[in-house]
């Protein structure tokens, strides 16, 4: 049985790519197109793993899904940290910005909500609730879309190896 390379390194690189491209201003709008950077992070992780794989080693869509999932989770963690760093350096308040955008969309929210808005105004930089929700939502979204990217890429790349039976059962 051929030794398979570690999945950690490609997943970390894919995750780092997700974090950087999803956090940088302007570039992060790419995620508005079907979570492009997150999907591509999963694609990158699978591609790097596939390149490092010995020719005789098996490669399945399951490997791709796992790599994508790991890359997505790392991407969410790194992205949240990088996001906090960006907020500190650029003196942003994304929680307030996002909520303002929601309000400007013309929707009316209850009066009680104004107190939350004031809270966001007073907290310079990062509001703990915002940071917690951001991390949770990133973990959910990244794990879904990056797994999808990894899965589809693995299906595309595995054709050359598909006739070999899985050996790691």
């Amino acid at each position, binding site marked *: 049985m051929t030794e398979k390379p570690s999945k950690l390194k490609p997943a970390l690189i894919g995750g780092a790519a997700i974090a950087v491209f999803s956090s940088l201003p302007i570039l992060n*709008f790419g*995620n*508005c*197109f*079907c*979570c492009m950077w997150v999907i591509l992070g999963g694609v990158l992780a699978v591609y790097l793993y596939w390149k490092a794989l010995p020719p005789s080693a098996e490669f*399945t*869509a*399951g490997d*791709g*899904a796992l790599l994508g999932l790991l890359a997505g989770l790392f991407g969410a963690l790194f992205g949240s940290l990088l996001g906090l760093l960006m907020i500190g350096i650029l003196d942003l308040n994304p929680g307030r910005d*996002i*909520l303002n*955008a*929601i309000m400007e*969309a*013309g*929707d*009316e*929210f*209850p009066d009680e*909500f104004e107190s939350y808005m004031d809270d966001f105004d007073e907290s310079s930089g990062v509001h703990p609730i915002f940071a917690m*929700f951001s991390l949770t*939502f*990133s973990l*959910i*979204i990244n794990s879904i*879309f990056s797994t*999808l990217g990894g*899965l*589809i890429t*693995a*299906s*595309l790349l595995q054709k050359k190896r*598909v006739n070999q*039976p*899985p050996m790691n*059962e």
Partner: protein
Amino acid sequence: MYNTLFKRSTGIQFSRRFAMIYGVIAAGTLLWCIAFIASPRLIEMGGIHSLFAIGFRYFYSFICHQNPDRSFHVLGHSMAVCARCTGIYFGALIGILTFPFTIGWFNEHSPWKKWLVIVIGLNLIEFTLSSLNLFSNLILRAGTGLTLGLGIASCALFAIFTHIQIRLKWRDST
């Protein structure tokens, strides 16, 4: 070994595992779609429901620009995602629900890769045209998004079930 529901000429048995994975994916996608459709209704209901609407909108703000001019409106409020995303997610839902009847569980020769290239091309053309303000239409955005969602969902399901199929074949042969 596996709880057989039916067996096709491929010799692969449709097991509970297939049904369970398919059910989870279909239910998850349905919930995903319900959440962004429900957002305007929750705002309309007011009170604590509005906070849920904000939660949904915040969630989808990670993956969508949510521009009201580029979104469908329900009950006078824009949906939590834009028209293109609406198309993509509904396309994915349709793709998943119709998968057993279109591509099928054990189709080893699906032309999905060609379809994926075509729908990505279509979406890139539409995206470019609307970005350059040459042609902009909500229905067209949603329509091209629908094809992309269909393509991606079909590819993903095909990859998942092919993976399971290979493993089952290998297990049966040992």
